[in-house]
């Protein structure tokens, strides 16, 4: 899909954001909050927690805008990384709490729902979903493990019972394929 960021030059947006311009923030939020929320939801699998996290994430983005260095990477990627790291950190913190590990059946059903991609996508993305369905399942699985669950290569190799070298090769192949899909 063509992203709307082309409507506003990223450098102008960043300049307005660093001036703490409310309109710029609203634009940023409207543009990116569904994607960030989707990613967070994909990681923590809990609406309420994801909403709280999303709020924290935007506060973090807002406070750390001065630290963003356009020469090191894209703004959306930077935001995505903040969102992903926050969500993965939060998930890990919860896992260490024993009470959080006990889930009711109802919750499990909800989690299973999420895991098997039964979320309601925005209708405009359906076409893209089809494109992604072309992605080989084992590659998609690896991207999801590493990107959304924050698995290291070693952890992913162990989880999938694959040699480390295969994991590395497959990650590269998956991303190259993804790259081609969005060209």
């Amino acid at each position, binding site marked *: *899909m063509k*992203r709307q960021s082309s409507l506003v030059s990223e450098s102008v947006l960043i300049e307005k954001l660093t*001036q*703490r*311009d*409310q309109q710029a*923030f*609203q634009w940023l*939020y409207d543009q990116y*909050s*569904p*994607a960030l*929320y*989707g*990613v967070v*939801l*994909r990681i923590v699998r809990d*609406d309420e927690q*994801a*909403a709280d996290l*999303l*709020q924290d994430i*935007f*506060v973090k983005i*807002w406070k750390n805008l001065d630290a963003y260095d356009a*020469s*090191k*990477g*894209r703004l*959306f*990627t930077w935001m*995505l*990384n903040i969102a992903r*790291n926050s969500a993965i950190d939060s998930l890990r913190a919860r896992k260490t709490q024993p009470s959080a590990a006990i889930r009711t059946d109802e919750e499990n059903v909800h989690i299973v729902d999420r895991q098997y991609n039964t*979320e*309601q*996508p*925005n209708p405009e*993305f359906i076409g*893209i*979903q089809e494109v*992604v369905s072309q992605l080989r399942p084992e590659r998609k699985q690896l*991207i999801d493990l*590493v*990107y959304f669950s*924050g*698995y*290291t*290569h070693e952890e992913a190799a162990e989880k999938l019972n694959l040699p480390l070298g295969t994991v*590395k*090769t497959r*990650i*590269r192949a*998956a*991303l*190259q394929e*993804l*790259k081609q*899909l*969005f060209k």
Partner: protein
Amino acid sequence: MNITEYIASGILESYVMGAVSDQERREVECLSSIYPEIRQEIDQLAEALENYALLHSVEPPASVKDKLLKELEFGQPKEIEREPIIRELPTNGPTYRVTWIVAASMGLLLLLFSFYLLSELRTNQKTLAATRTANDALQLEMRQIRDNQSRTEQTLALLRQPGLRTIELRGNEKAPQGDMIVFWNTQTHQVAVDVRSLPSLPADKQYQLWSMVDGKPVDAGVFDATNGTELIQRLNRTVTRAEAFAVTVEKRGGSPIPTTSTLLALSPVNA
């Protein structure tokens, strides 16, 4: 390094997935800043992941945006920054002015003090120079006084010696102002003169004293017309007998026979 190989190594994919160590991350960032090809590949991979993330978009609850709009601080930073500056100026003004005044007065004081020191130094130098001159003058005067004193003592000693005769010689018509005293000690046979006033002579001439023995003149030594600057001139001749003393003008060093035409004064001893 081989960039193509580096790109194909899979490290960039791991980097954009956030699955690299801190060291690897720094390495990739460093290389991407050097090699545009690496930077381009990273951007493409990141964009692919961005698009992948976009696929998972879910509209968040509206409450999140409302909370954020309340929680975050917005504003026109330029105006916010300007206001405190405008307000701070007057509060900072007096402090600044006071500091400036204090600094300026300190500087002025220092300047005045240095002028004072400089003038003191000059005065002292002048005083010192004046004192030195005065000291030199005093020393000179002192030396003269000491010389005078020693001469006076010699004169006094001469005059106190027993057997001293004093013969006053008056100038004749050739030297009407001529006035001198001859001191003759009849025991030691020493002769000295005290010239009060005699006409000054050319450099090649000198006065010569003669003692008259049996009517004949005998050389009694030469002297100059010191006219009071020297108290007494001792003459380097001894006079054993004398009936009278006479003074003539002779060539410097004296002559064996008096030039009678230049006789200035003649006075008998037993006047």
